[in-house]
């Protein structure tokens, strides 16, 4: 049941990214380019998405079990540490270079854009490198 929910939610999430124009790096970069012809679309998308998600999360965080069963796993660490800030910084630089983040990049894969494939493969490489680095440092 959880996998069916994931399939449907992934599909709706991806459709939202497509409909909102957030799969177009030019529009994303237009929002990030505060000194150029600023494009507010990404800000509107985020505010509306948050407004819709907020009540759902307010209910979800008060529950101990998910509607489809199983425990709620919504919150992890709460400490703002160097790791979080360094990761966000590295992620932000990459996001600013291409105008692509993981969600839109995955959505673009089946549109057969060569650039999206290159980006997704490199992104998977970066994630795999993190896993390897994690294992190497844990052994020390």
């Amino acid at each position, binding site marked *: 049941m959880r996998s069916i929910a994931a399939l449907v939610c992934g599909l709706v999430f991806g459709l939202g990214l*497509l409909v909102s*124009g957030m799969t177009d790096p030019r529009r994303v970069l237009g929002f990030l380019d505060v000194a150029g012809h600023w494009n507010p679309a990404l800000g509107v*998308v985020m505010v509306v998405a948050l407004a819709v998600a907020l009540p759902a999360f307010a209910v979800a965080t008060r529950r101990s079990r998910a509607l489809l069963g199983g425990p709620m796993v919504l919150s992890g660490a709460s400490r703002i540490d160097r790791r979080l800030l360094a990761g966000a910084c590295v992620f932000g630089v990459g996001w600013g270079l291409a105008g692509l983040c993981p969600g839109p990049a995955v959505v673009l894969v089946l549109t057969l854009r060569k650039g999206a494939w290159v980006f997704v493969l490199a992104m998977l490489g970066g994630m795999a490198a993190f896993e390897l680095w994690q294992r190497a440092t844990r052994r020390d």
Partner: protein
Amino acid sequence: MIEAAGMGDPSWLLPAVLGGALIGAAAGAFALLAGRIAGISDIVGGLLRPLGGERAWRWAFVAGLLLAPVAHVLVAPVPAAHLSHSPALLVVAGLLVGFGARLGSGCTSGHGICGLARLSRRSLAATLVFMGAAMVTVFVARHVLAGQGAS
């Protein structure tokens, strides 16, 4: 400068509102139904972990994302994606996005949507930092380096 995009051509506004609502609904529904965060870097990254559990729903979520343009094309053509960067730049950007999102425990969806929606201070910090870093990067690329005849 805001007027250039905001008032000149408001055709982006309705899709932005509609798309944003779909994204928020999907993230909210998934939290309620499955009790999990719809964070794309965590979902994809979790599949790369050799001993990671919870694979089935991760694959299903990724399949949903992959199928989105297929579903979209049944109703209307898939919106254009302007990706004019060189492959080398895309490789560097992809590596940074992948590594950074895992190191920082989340990306635009995990911290920016789900984290903020559950009022996490940690996610607010991450979102402000990656937004700021991305804006500085775009500023340097477009207004500092581009001005030096690097065409």
